[in-house]
């Protein structure tokens, strides 16, 4: 449970009516699955259980973790976000043209990163605005914004690969602190910030509430539209940062920097226990999901599963993991969409 409910209850409270069945197990499922899969790989593969590989897994999870942070807020509202590829691509190209690079004389450094993230946030905001103003489902607005982002990125790309020479940005991927790349620490920072937003900010709590019962917020006099736009903007900012991180890793701005991250992040969030219908889950759930997915990807390579089969085996395990996680909470009249 990531709800702060338990965090600061120091007074002794009257006994509660018995808790709902399955509450604790529901949240324990994904971490247990993570542990089991991790142990399994560690048993099978000596290469997997090295410190170096664990560092590698953490590093490899960094970008996905940041994307998932963003998408989690959207999923919590019960919306969906497919804009990551476009937004990341636009941010990646933008940042690579703003920091020191081979295409132009810009050398904006950290400011360039900031501008790229703002651009991404603006694209996210666009999804949100289209959702609340045109009343178009987020599935479509984000798909549209993704295409717009890719278009903007292709325009900026202009046929010549922008490569970055900015030492700071390149250093993020290369330099290490306590064995982990700076990028990984950035991802940790994002998860922490995401968690704080989720638990301690009105934005985060309202996002959660919108997923739970949007109509009730309106009855209580809360205008949900600004919060929805804000959530998509926040998600866009996270994607933008992720795009910057990919650029840092590759030392080059790629239009395709975000390819595949949309479904990967949704998978991670859902595997971690965030419901697509909204109102449940959260950043910490998603973080577990990200690790689970990354451990799987890494482990299958380590174990030496044929590249032909890897996708399939991964799909199978994800389904099995979710199935195992839902067994304890299965109820007769439970709604599964």
């Amino acid at each position, binding site marked *: 449970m990531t*709800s*702060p*409910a*338990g*965090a*600061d*209850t120091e007074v002794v*409270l*009257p006994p*509660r*009516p*018995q*808790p*709902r*069945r399955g*509450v604790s197990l529901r949240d324990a499922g994904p971490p247990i699955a993570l542990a089991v899969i991790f142990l399994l790989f560690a048993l099978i593969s000596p290469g997997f259980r090295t410190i170096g590989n664990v560092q590698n897994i953490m590093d490899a999870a960094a970008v996905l973790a940041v994307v998932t942070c963003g998408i989690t807020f959207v999923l919590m509202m019960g919306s969906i976000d497919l804009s990551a590829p476009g937004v990341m691509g636009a941010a990646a190209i933008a940042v690579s043209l703003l920091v020191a690079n081979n295409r132009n004389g810009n050398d904006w450094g950290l400011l360039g990163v900031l501008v790229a993230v703002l651009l991404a946030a603006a694209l996210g905001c666009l999804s949100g605005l289209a959702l609340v103003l045109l009343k178009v489902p987020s599935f479509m607005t984000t798909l549209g914004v993704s295409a717009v982002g890719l278009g903007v990125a292709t325009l900026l790309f202009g046929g010549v690969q922008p490569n970055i020479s900015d030492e700071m940005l390149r250093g993020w991927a290369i330099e290490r602190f306590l064995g982990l790349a700076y990028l990984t620490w950035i991802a940790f920072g994002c998860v922490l910030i995401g968690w704080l937003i989720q*638990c*301690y*900010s*009105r*934005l985060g*709590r309202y996002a*959660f*509430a919108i*997923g*739970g*019962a949007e*109509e*009730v*917020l*309106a*009855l*209580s*006099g*809360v205008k949900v539209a600004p919060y929805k736009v804000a959530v998509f903007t926040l998600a866009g900012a996270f994607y933008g940062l992720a795009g910057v991180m990919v650029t840092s890793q590759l030392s080059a701005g790629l239009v395709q920097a975000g390819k595949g991250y949309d479904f990967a992040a949704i998978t991670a969030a859902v595997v971690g226990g965030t419901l697509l219908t909204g*109102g*449940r889950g959260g950043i910490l759930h998603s973080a577990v999901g990200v690790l689970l997915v990354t451990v799987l990807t890494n482990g299958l390579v380590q174990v030496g599963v044929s590249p032909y089969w890897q996708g399939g085996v991964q799909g199978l395990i994800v389904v099995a993991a979710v199935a195992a996680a839902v067994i304890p909470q299965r*109820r*007769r*009249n439970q709604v599964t969409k």
Partner: protein
Amino acid sequence: MTTHLQSQPDAQASAPVHALEVRGLVKHYPGVKALDGVDLVVHQNEVLGLAGENGAGKSTLLKALVGLVRPDAGEIWVRGEKVRLRSVVEAADHGIGMVFQEQSLVPNLTAAENIVLGSEGAGVRRGLYRWDTMRKLAQEQLDKIGSQIDPLARTDTLTFAERQMVEIAKVLRIEERTSHPPVIILDEPTSVLESAEIETLFTQVRRLREFASVIFVSHRLDEVLDVCDRVLVLRGGQSVGEVSTASAAPAELHRMMIGSTGSEDHYHDTAAERSDQPLQPRLVVKGLSGATFRDVDLDVHAGEIVGIVGVHGSGREDVCRALFGAEPIEAGEVTLDGDKLDLSGTRAACAAGVGYVPAERKIEGMVGPMSVADNMTLTKQKSRCSGPLVMPQKQATLVDKWIERLSIRTPHRGTAIQRLSGGNQQKVVLARWLVAGDIRLLLLDHPTRGLDIGARSEVYRLMRELANSGVATVLLADSLEEAIGMSDRIIVMSDGRATAEVGCPSGAKPTPLDLVKEMV
């Protein structure tokens, strides 16, 4: 003492301005005139009751008072000032707050958050939550109504009644919001409460009267007369009269509501109608155990109505669901007319002639956007099909017949059920089990929740009719009185076990107190 004109000010309310005044409010919906020139006056420090049949326009009127419904015509005056209310917030700023008929809490937030939702005040600073303050704010509200609920409990872990308390605590926030005496609107707050909680609520309402005005809606007319100072009766979207509660009787009120007279036993409990019970019970439950109930034995004869009573958490609801195959069981044997009843799923239960009316109508009872006709025939497809094909004409005739029989107020059989008033929705859900006429066992979970007295009476009559035609009925009643009035026998459940059985044959009914003794 009934007056059909209300413009003359009541002597007892000597305040120069009214807390709230409504003049000629009109609201059209496609096919319905929900409000047709309603007038209403609320004095300072009084509890005004609002009575009327299902669909009379009560909820619509009240929603207009909190800015959720924009009236087509008419004026609203608050403390002598004409206002236009466009949102809940604006209404709250004028000191008007409301507890809605359908529960409106965010299930995945804590009770505290729900209580302060939309007016967090000091609980949020610069967009950041201060949980300590938040809990204190919520605790203050809960203390006002003497509730023991943990403010930091997630709302969906609370029971129905607890959630209702949270709603009331929430609306009381309005006191903090305005310096004026507030107007608090309670739309059917008691329909989901047990008698003890109702008493708590009434204490609250009486306390509120000290400094506020209250509008109170209930279909339990005795309650209305009990707690209100004055009752306004609505019919067909118009105010048809006013009753001072000091002298009125429920019957008089009811006559005004429906606009006709008549007198009959509310529960239609005439022993003569009942045929002799066969020797073999229709439903036999032996040692039924599930997650929230243990070793429940139960038998119901054809034509018999068996009530199950119990406090919250007694597990009676889950027993009902288990009998319908909607809840897994761990052990036990259930037979219907001697054949083993398949409890593996709801479909098997339907096929065996079992019907179930769930308590949470909005989520489980009806498919909101679908038409009245489709909702009514959803279960018994046979009734509208010939072979595998749907016969629209057959369906239309059948549905119209039941709309007429149950006096369901709907513009058309094709209207989406979510557009109907709560009571009328419930009638459609009930009708669903009656259309085919092949029902053997009917499980009713609070079947009259939210129904007006006429509709309720109609439901009771239906239940009787069904019983007389041989249907075995299990009833989780809305109140102990209802259980006593309707049941032939009452099973008392507590902590998931059936602890006692009280016979209540016609003419020798136990009192509610007898039951309460068994329940605790």
